[in-house]
């Protein structure tokens, strides 16, 4: 047990802190002070500008090797960076589905050529990746995907439909699961593809999320020819028909700490403690302290998890517990925020936006009902 940061970690924190404080303010000023949601067309462009500033100064992907645009930061440093990131009020990462979900799978399953060709433009926010898992009839039940891939000389023919693709209407590339063995069922016979969205035969239609922003898209594949070299290093990630394992690794990242680092929750909780203090209601003050404890516990539990990862262990089914915790914590925090705002909670604004977003937490990345099943069966060992 040693809960102190080393001198070099403290130095890293100081660097990050300095850069973020200066640049967040500068970026906001450059866009007229008020930035739109990253899930609107206008806001997405503003956020891309932010992403490119991050990349320019090598803060976009701190944990990646320098070759790919990172700083080779340790997991500890990455956590420090995330904490400082949210403390500085920096915006949500519109590149997150690439850098936090696809990239870990690319590091694990990608060929050197794929890593070489894909990672840097992703970090630079030149190639913008979205996730193509869900289909109209394959939500929680991901193994029932029916979008098809057929091998043809020099590439693949894709047919089918993906939906609820976050920011799909603004992205350039999609990673997704397709059934490449027509006779296969469930988890078998699926291939994990990397697909430019300007491939002929691919159509993207954006549509409104709960909060009204065009944050979702449907992606239609109509006899779309995907050339083997449409993506540098090849369009198949992992083995053909071995897509399920790769997808599960990606989903693990989605549930686990890379997508939702504790910093954002702790910072939100601190703001609520201040709001509750100002509002004065004793019940709400106590609720704020409780919510803060839940956020802080996530922070501490993450330190424990990173300790095991740093010792070389693989993340396991415990990621399901983390996903349950942060998604329900996010709702607890924002429910409290609305109760603190009282009648003003009805106004559109950062709190009501974040409240609506928090409600998606128990749905995406595998519903919390599914996560509870997984945790019960794989962490506790209950019978299926």
């Amino acid at each position, binding site marked *: 047990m040693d809960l102190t940061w080393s001198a070099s970690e403290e130095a890293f924190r100081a660097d990050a802190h300095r850069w973020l404080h200066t640049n967040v303010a500068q970026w906001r000023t450059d866009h007229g002070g008020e930035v739109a949601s990253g899930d609107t067309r206008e806001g997405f462009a503003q956020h891309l500008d932010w992403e490119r500033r991050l990349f320019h100064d090598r803060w976009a992907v701190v944990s990646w090797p320098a070759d790919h645009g990172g700083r080779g930061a340790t997991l500890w440093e990455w956590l420090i960076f995330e904490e400082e990131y949210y403390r500085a009020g920096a915006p949500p990462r519109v590149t997150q589905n690439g850098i936090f979900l696809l990239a870990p799978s690319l590091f694990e399953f990608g060929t050197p050529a794929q890593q070489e060709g894909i990672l840097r433009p992703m970090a630079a926010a030149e190639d913008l990746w979205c996730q193509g898992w*869900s289909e109209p*009839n*394959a*939500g*929680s*039940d991901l193994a*029932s995907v029916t979008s098809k891939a057929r091998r043809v000389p020099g590439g693949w023919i894709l047919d089918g439909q993906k*939906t*609820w693709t976050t920011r799909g209407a603004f992205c350039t590339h999609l990673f997704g699961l397709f059934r490449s063995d027509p006779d296969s069922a469930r988890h078998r016979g699926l291939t994990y593809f990397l697909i430019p969205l300007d491939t002929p035969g691919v159509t993207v239609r954006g*549509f*409104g*999320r*709960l*909060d*009204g922003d065009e944050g*979702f898209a449907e992606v239609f594949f109509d006899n779309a020819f995907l050339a083997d070299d449409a993506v540098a290093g090849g369009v198949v990630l992992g083995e053909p028909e071995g897509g399920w394992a790769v997808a599960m690794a990606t989903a693990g990242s989605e549930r686990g700490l890379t997508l939702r680092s504790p910093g954002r929750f702790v910072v939100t909780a601190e703001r609520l403690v201040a709001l509750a203090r100002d509002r004065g*209601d004793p*019940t*709400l003050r106590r609720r704020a302290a409780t919510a803060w404890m839940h956020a802080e516990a996530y922070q501490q539990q993450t330190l424990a998890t990173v300790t095991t990862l740093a010792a070389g262990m693989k993340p396991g089914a415990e990621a399901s517990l983390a996903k349950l915790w942060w998604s329900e914590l996010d709702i607890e925090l924002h429910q409290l925020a*609305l*109760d603190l705002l*009282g*009648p*003003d*909670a*009805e*106004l*559109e604004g950062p709190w*009501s936006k974040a409240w*609506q977003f928090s*409600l*998606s937490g*128990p*749905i*995406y990345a595998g*519903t*919390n*009902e599914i996560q*509870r099943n997984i945790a019960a069966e794989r962490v506790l060992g209950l019978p299926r």
Partner: protein
Amino acid sequence: MRFSWSQDQQAFSDAVRELLAKEGTPLVVRAAWDAPPGHLDRGVWDSLDAMGVLAVLVPEAAGGLGLDETFLVPILEEAGRVALPHPIVETAMVAAPLLGAGIGMIASDLGGPLVPCAADADRILLHQGDTLAVTDGDAVELTAATTVDGARRAATLSTPRHPEVLTDDPAVIALALDRGALGTAAMLVGLGQAMLDLTVDYVSQRQQFGVPIGSFQAVKHHLTNAALALEFARPAVARAAWSVAQSTPTRARDVSMAKAMASDAAELVGRQALQCHGAIGYTVEADLHLYLKRTWALARAWGDTAHHTDRVTHALEADLPSA
């Protein structure tokens, strides 16, 4: 003792339900999201007016139906069931007993600083200092507010020029506030029922893992919890309607209990409904969000749960022998 709506009360609200099923569809709510301020369509509203709904609480002598809140509350539950965007609580429940029949559409700031349908209303009922006052819509400057529920069409108001003072009687003002909270509680029960019904239908159809998702125990339990909250909020609202109609000594306490329980129930149903819909519900293309956002708005209008729970606390403690 008879804890149920009378045949007349039931028949009236059934008729309203039938009307609203035809004329108060989700398209009406969507239209209210899109119409510019001052351009709320009055089709359904005029039909409700023609049925006498807006004048239920107005004495017969004054051209109304001369009925009481036990008639209006089940009707407002029906209005909630279709997420009616028009200011029916403000008009029929709060303003009509003060202003009479044929008053058009009334907005009011009694429910909170964000005034629904302010630009669409004919007149605005105001809580001015210690008085209730009324003013023409064009005597006030409006600033449209962007709220989570576009169909609420809310605005904030500037101080009006020359409002007509109706009363400075605190009892009349308190009754108006209680009526607003009660009417809103009824709307919330209706909203909750609408979301529950929508979700029961959805999970009975939607297949995952080869079966309807409504066959999973977790989904069953979510929706039972939702139904449970509604099942016990509804009688609280009905009892409060009686207490207001009869001016019982427990009126304020009963109204607050109704509002707190209806707000909590509708919010819980909304949470479970969204979760059981999954990503499909998390879009503006599905109708669910129309009900959900109205629920969020109404749960905090006319006093939130903390406010009303504190009123209940004070009423109960006042009845206790001293320690």
